[in-house]
């Protein structure tokens, strides 16, 4: 992994990034002013929130939407809460 402050002798040539998906390590959660909280009791597992999330932050495991939202990356847009057909997601002030 390339670190801030690395010099030209150690970084790959031509601006290549030599690994896939490493943006996972970049935290965008700090952009948020409100965070989504999922009420599992209300959730009907329709997966709309999962599909609509622009930040790939609604997680699904084995076909079940998780209430463990990826707050490292969720930017708090509120789309999930807005689209939830059963109002199972609430936007809560940080």
């Amino acid at each position, binding site marked *: 992994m390339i670190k801030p402050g*690395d010099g*030209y002798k150690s970084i790959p040539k031509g*601006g290549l990034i030599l690994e896939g998906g490493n943006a996972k390590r970049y935290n965008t959660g700090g952009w948020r002013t409100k965070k989504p909280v999922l009420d599992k009791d209300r959730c009907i597992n329709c997966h709309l929130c999962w599909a609509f999330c622009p930040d790939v932050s609604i997680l699904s495991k084995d076909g079940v939407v998780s209430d463990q939202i990826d707050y490292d990356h969720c930017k708090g847009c509120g789309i999930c809460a807005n689209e939830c057909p059963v109002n199972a997601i609430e936007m809560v002030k940080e």
Partner: protein
Amino acid sequence: MSSKVALTGNEALAQAMRQINPDVVAAYPITPQTAMVQTFSQFVADGEVDTEYVTVESEHSAMSATVGASAAGARAMTATAANGLALMWEVLYIASGTRLPIVMPVVNRALSGPINIHCDHSDAMGARDSGWIQLYAENAQEAYDNAIQALRISEHKDVMLPTMVNLDGFITSHAVESLEILADSDVKEFIGEYKAEHHLLDSKNPIAVGPLDLQDFYFEHKMQQSIAMENSKEVILEVAKEYKELSGREYEFFEEYKLDDAEIGIVALNSTAGTAKGAVDNLREQGVKAGLLKIRVYRPFPGEEIAEVLKSLKAVAVLDRAESFSTNGGPVFGDIRSILYNIKADVEVVNYIYGLGGRDIKVGEIESVYRDLEEIIDSGNVKNRVSHLGVRE
């Protein structure tokens, strides 16, 4: 076994491309390059190469697709001229900045406007700072030899930069010359297989090419590029040495023609060097100590080496087949004067801009340049630092 053949410059380059057998060629026709890609596409149609030929809709796409192919690990080539090169401009920098070893013949032609299809160097000179290695050729033989060597230079791990193989439009591209082409198997062996260190089609090791590179790393990547250009000098000479063993033909950064004891000299590129040799021979017969320095490698610029040769002359004329409109002379002139200044050489250097838009340059005109140099030595005065040779008032 190499063979002696009669070919135009375009045909010779098409033969070089056939022997290189690139995985991908993406090219667009433009005068005077057309015959090259036309001939090559016949090789594709006849199954003589493994190449996927991408018949792009513009030169911009030609360079773009070549970049894509090269980033995918393919040996990728294209060819162009003049306005085609100008249309590629943006992507030239992307190719070199991404460190892709693309080889591209450029059939030098005047840039519009007004539109003109004939030879000058305004196309390649404009691209001299694009991070491409630039090789120049006096004739079809040299252009062919440069193309084969360019592959090795570009793909060298310490270089990984693209190369332009320049030849003069019509004068070299369309005239039939007798030249020697190497055996297919010798070229194959000489260039070897290309294995990209990292490429897009390695699904187990995905990479990202061309990211947004901001204040924190862009400069470092440019520094690497600068070092690679510096490295290319040694590689160019190594490859030339190996090529000599194969072909018997010798190449260096430049050719010195009767410079050993010369007092006056001309610096020229491409086919004009051939004309200048005629002028030197005539003057030598008259006892004039004239010589010629023909630049083969213009980028990287072998400044120290050129200065070392020119410093013993009394006066030098640089012939530029391109106007820079700086009002201080052409591009090659600027480079030559600057390196002589570095070593504080006591040599007068003047500039002649000539041959724009394919205007003929004749032996007699070049002789007149040498006469001007003699006058500078005799009088100790430079009347015109920059002149335009062969233009009507």
